[in-house]
């Protein structure tokens, strides 16, 4: 119990876990400090509600505390606690959605999606977004874009691209097929890309609908049609 605060803060997660398992609260507390911001951000992205995200944080760390004696370090502490947090958040979401929770699990035809992101705007960005807008504005833009996604796409994107789960982990977490994970992920990525392009595009570099690239009119038109048929089909 007598490891100094400073010494604790310098330790790797793995060492802190070992200390916490021996009963050192300071070590556990440091682990919480280290991971709470990331997990809170994930929970906010999933639930889009502060109270719910706070509840998820509290249950996550209580569960981590309770199961710490069984933690054997097969995965890193970070991965382990992230898994607890995302499962907890998804359960809150299922409960909150009530009857709709079924839709999280069932295999639905993707045609039912309300929002289909046609790649209308194809343009390179005018620079690094974190340099062309202020941090606060960037966050607003990212929030706005992601909260406009249908829930099914949003969840897949968050689990896969934000939290960094694999396709099969995402499939298991949401109880949908891997094929559905992939389709939803593609739609989400395309939709977000499109929204962000509206904000960050370099108008000089926009490919207009009638624009033919490389002097190949046929190729350009067919690309557009194929994009659309792929997304709607």
């Amino acid at each position, binding site marked *: 119990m007598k490891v100094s605060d400073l010494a604790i803060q310098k330790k790797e997660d793995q060492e802190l876990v070992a200390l916490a398992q021996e*009963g050192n*609260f300071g070590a*556990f*507390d440091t682990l*919480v400090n280290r991971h*709470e*911001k*990331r997990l*809170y*951000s*994930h929970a*906010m*992205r999933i639930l889009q509600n*502060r109270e719910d*995200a*706070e509840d998820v*944080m*509290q249950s996550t*760390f*209580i569960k981590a*505390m*309770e199961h710490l004696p069984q933690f054997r370090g097969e995965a890193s502490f970070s991965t382990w606690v992230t898994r607890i947090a995302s499962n907890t958040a998804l359960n809150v979401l299922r409960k909150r959605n009530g009857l709709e929770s079924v839709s999280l699990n069932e295999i639905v035809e993707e045609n039912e999606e309300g929002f289909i992101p046609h*790649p209308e705007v*194809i*343009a*390179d*960005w005018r620079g690094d*977004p*974190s340099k062309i807008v202020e941090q606060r504005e*960037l*966050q607003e833009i*990212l929030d706005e874009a*992601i909260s406009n996604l249908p829930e099914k796409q949003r969840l897949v*994107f968050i689990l896969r*691209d*934000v939290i*960094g789960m694999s396709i099969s982990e995402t499939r298991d977490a949401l109880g949908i097929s891997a094929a559905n994970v*992939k389709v939803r*992920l*593609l739609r989400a*990525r*395309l939709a*977000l*890309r499109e929204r*962000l*392009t509206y904000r960050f595009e370099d108008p000089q*570099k926009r*490919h207009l609908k009638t624009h033919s*690239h*490389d002097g190949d009119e046929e*190729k*350009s038109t*067919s*690309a557009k049609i*194929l*994009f659309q048929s*792929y997304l709607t089909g």
Partner: protein
Amino acid sequence: MKCEDLLRMLNDYVDQDIDPGICTDFEVHLKGCNPCKVVVDTIRKTIRLYKNDEVYEVPIEFHDRLHQTLRDRWKKTMDENKEN
């Protein structure tokens, strides 16, 4: 490879989960098709912006409450373990 094929494999390419041979075809197509190249580039940038996203600050009063709750729980669990 056509634009359609490329779109179908966009995820696999972006996630680098693609056969080396197909990857070469993919890259040949990108060299000759600027719209596809721009879509791939801006999708990558989009993912990067959201990745490792830690934009939300934990509200300070919640942070304090959380750590107090955990401290109380910890103590309680320790005391119970001692009794057993």
